[in-house]
């Protein structure tokens, strides 16, 4: 086969090209020809097709994501906003924190271990590329029904992959989510979040500037793995039944090497310390196509790359394949000529392969050569930043009204103390509410020695500075059931819960990252869910004053016509001046008083109770009151800072009784509970009204605490006392902790061990 050079392409305008097989639409192909003024070469076609895929170009979602910028609240904390590898937040004392959540959904269904492992690897490199030391990871997960046979294949593999990669990298796993719902049967969601810490002056950006600067590719050698991974696995051409076929020629699955990534991290941080880098980009989806075009597009000059200098694992790879390869554990840096020798020396110290593959040029073209012949000559912006934009039609699904009309209020409720007791046990033992330690015990939460709080706490907390005790807290939440009932409110509830979780630890919420997992954008109903969720999230961020700093979109999560529940996963980052003042969730002191903060209404739509007891989904989700969330957060933070509370736990799915059970079990203490006069016992125990938390107040602080709540207008109801070794709801039932613990902790081992 002759090499399809730029010259050859110019000379053979009629040659038929496989644009459709590469996932391009006819008008997209026509636009490429128009941009270039000729037909693209094979290498150019490969680059455009992968960079213009949904996964890389956000062509269906970006018109909606725009709101995150347009409605962004004023925030002094945001140092780098949406558009870079990850946003950067000022946390004081000269420190900056970067964090982001991404999806690796489809690959994790095909090959759970490697899919999940490389998901962690990818998000860690994004954080590293900002100039930060990665300090923690989290893993929001969604699986099919807990007792479905395929969940037995997917879940253990995903968990082992996340642990296998994250543990080997030496990053503590400080939290995440595990949700089971049959809607995720063929489309499990594997989202991964990473947090990194740096000093302000260490922030690095993905741009290539300075004519004559060298482009260095370093890390793993480039192999044939993951070719087409982006376009095949993460776009509309993906079809589960076809997965075996897709792997026939080049594997679409990537295998991770966490050891190589650990070396890459240490090597890169040493390079940053010596200020050797002018611009840097990780290699993720779309590999070199993405890195070279994004670097060149964001910089001031052009770029020239000698593709045959790329170190290969497989010598038979074609130039197109090299450009598209998604081999893991690679980075691309732009380095001034005078710094190249030292850069390579540091790579040698860490046994990291590094090669100069090109340089920044004058002009504004990205030019790629293969053994001296030019195979790519494109305006980089047209590849990286000026891909197609779709205004997809969207419409509220016609089933939405019927779903909302099917109110959970019609479900039979427990009438006696014994029935309440039985349903409490059903609830805390249901897969979604059961203890997740069978999973989280497979993750190292101690490594790096700065983990102040980790799962099952409301938020993970990391000490940033050992001298000053400055720290950050992060939580992620998302409730697909709520979002299915009402995507606008559901997205806001996801944010509200995550925000509340961070505040419950004593940290002040500052900023947001999100991973939007939805069905096909070509389905107007799914597109409506997406649009509503974006609007809801952007509006809520504005009220709460927490800007979205970055995130990720995963579409086409559906099997045939059946889409997953719309699942916006929201991560919130908070800061705490003194981590020794953190608020844990455990009730560890008998005699402390329990206060319920916030208002409880009769809100059971989409609740854990309706799922666990009745396998029902219908009605409306709980109402959101963002001003109340803000007030509650302020109270939780003040109370922590001033030592007025010893424990706090946010109320979310499962309601009061679930929170109570978790805090009691964690502390090894029971509680005597009195149902407030104005509440029905069932509603009190199981309602999922938002904007609430349960706190333990030392008796000596009671007056000060209630005065503060009173003065600031937050309802605070004394509901009981920490005491004994049972949960005793007066006049209703008593449930020994041992029995509660057995029900709560046996479920997951029973299913997966």
């Amino acid at each position, binding site marked *: 086969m002759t090499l399809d050079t730029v010259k050859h392409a110019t000379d053979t305008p009629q040659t038929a090209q496989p644009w459709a097989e590469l996932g391009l639409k006819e008008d997209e192909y026509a636009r490429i020809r128009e941009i270039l003024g000729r037909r693209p070469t094979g290498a150019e076609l490969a680059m455009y097709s992968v960079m213009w895929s949904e996964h890389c170009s956000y062509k269906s979602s970006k018109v909606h994501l725009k709101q995150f910028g347009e409605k962004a609240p004023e925030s002094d904390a945001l140092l780098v906003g949406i558009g870079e590898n990850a946003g950067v937040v000022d946390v004081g004392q000269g420190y900056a924190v970067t964090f982001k959540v991404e999806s690796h959904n489809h690959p994790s269904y095909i*090959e759970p271990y490697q899919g999940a492992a490389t998901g962690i690897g990818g998000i860690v490199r994004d954080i590293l590329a900002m100039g930060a030391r990665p300090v923690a990871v989290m893993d929001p997960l969604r699986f099919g029904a807990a007792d479905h046979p395929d969940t037995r294949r997917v879940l253990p593999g995903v968990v082992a992959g996340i642990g296998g990669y994250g543990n080997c990298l030496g990053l503590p796993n400080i939290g995440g989510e595990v949700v089971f719902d049959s809607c995720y049967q063929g489309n499990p969601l594997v989202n991964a979040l990473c947090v990194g810490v740096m000093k302000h002056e260490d922030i690095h950006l993905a741009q290539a500037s300075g004519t004559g600067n060298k482009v260095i590719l370093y890390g793993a050698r480039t192999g044939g*793995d993951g070719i087409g991974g982006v376009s095949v696995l993460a776009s509309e051409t993906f079809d589960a039944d076809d997965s*075996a076929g897709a792997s026939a020629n080049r594997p679409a699955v990537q295998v991770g*090497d966490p050891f190589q990534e650990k070396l890459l991290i240490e090597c890169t941080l040493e390079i940053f310390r010596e200020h050797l880098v002018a611009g840097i980009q990780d290699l993720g989806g779309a590999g070199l196509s993405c890195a070279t075009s994004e670097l060149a597009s964001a910089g001031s000059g052009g770029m020239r790359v000698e593709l045959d200098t790329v170190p290969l*694992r497989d010598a038979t790879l074609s130039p197109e394949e090299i450009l598209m390869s998604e081999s893991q554990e690679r980075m691309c840096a732009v380095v001034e000529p005078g710094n190249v020798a030292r850069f390579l020396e540091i790579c040698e110290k860490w046994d990291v392969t590094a090669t100069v593959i090109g340089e920044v040029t004058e002009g504004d073209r990205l030019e790629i050569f293969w053994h001296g012949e030019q195979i790519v000559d494109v305006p980089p912006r047209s590849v990286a930043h000026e891909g197609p934009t779709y205004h997809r039609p969207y419409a509220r699904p016609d089933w939405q009204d019927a779903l909302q009309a099917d109110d959970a209020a019609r479900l039979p409720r427990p009438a006696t103390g014994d029935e309440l007791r039985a349903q409490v046990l059903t609830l805390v033992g249901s897969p979604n509410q059961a203890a997740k330690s069978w999973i989280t015990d497979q993750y190292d939460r101690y490594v790096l020695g700065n983990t102040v709080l980790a799962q099952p706490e409301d938020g993970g907390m990391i000490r940033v500075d050992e001298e000053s005790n400055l720290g950050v807290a992060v939580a992620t939440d998302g409730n697909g059931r709520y979002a299915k009932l009402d995507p606008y409110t559901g997205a806001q509830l996801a944010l509200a819960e995550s925000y509340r979780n961070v505040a419950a630890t004593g940290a002040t919420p500052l900023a947001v990252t999100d991973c939007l997992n939805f069905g096909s954008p070509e389905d107007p109903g799914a597109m409506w869910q997406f649009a509503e969720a974006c609007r809801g999230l952007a509006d809520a961020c504005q009220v709460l004053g927490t800007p979205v700093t970055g995130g990720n979109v995963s579409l086409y999560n559906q099997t045939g016509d059946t889409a997953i529940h719309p699942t916006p996963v929201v991560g919130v980052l908070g800061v705490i001046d003194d981590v020794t003042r953190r608020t844990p969730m455990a009730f560890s002191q008998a005699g402390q008083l329990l206060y319920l903060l916030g208002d409880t209404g009769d809100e059971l739509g989409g609740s854990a109770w309706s799922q666990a007891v009745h396998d029902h989904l219908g009605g409306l989700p709980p109402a959101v009151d963002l001003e109340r969330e803000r007030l509650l957060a302020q109270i939780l933070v003040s109370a922590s800072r001033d030592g007025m509370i010893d424990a706090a736990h946010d109320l979310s799915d499962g309601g009061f009784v679930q929170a109570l059970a978790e805090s009691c079990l964690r502390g090894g203490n029971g509680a005597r509970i009195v149902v407030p006069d104005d509440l029905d016992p069932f509603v009190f125990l199981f309602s999922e009204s938002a904007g609430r938390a349960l706190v333990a107040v030392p008796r000596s602080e009671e007056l000060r605490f209630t005065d503060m709540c009173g003065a600031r207008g937050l309802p605070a109801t004394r509901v009981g006392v920490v005491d004994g070794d049972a949960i005793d709801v007066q006049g209703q039932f008593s449930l020994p902790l041992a029995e509660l613990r057995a029900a709560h902790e046996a479920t997951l081992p029973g299913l997966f061990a």
Partner: protein
Amino acid sequence: MARVVVDVMLKPEILDPQGQAVQRALPRLGFTGISDVRQGKRFELDVEGPVDDAVLARVREMAETFLANTVIEDFTVRVEDGTPAGDARNGAPA
């Protein structure tokens, strides 16, 4: 009692970090002249009764669906004495 051996190796195009780590270590230990190392798994199955074609077919199915992950791995099945059980890597239908 007969023994059937199933060898499972990563497909040639799939990254083999373990094999690479071994290969990189060899020169440091004074071993040269090894141009590539791949590391895989070896299963020794003790089979009750005689190993006939039906048994081998079952073992092959077991390898295909369970012992190997054919998304990233190839396998071979053979009776202990070393004769391949009539199939090339992966391919053979059961």
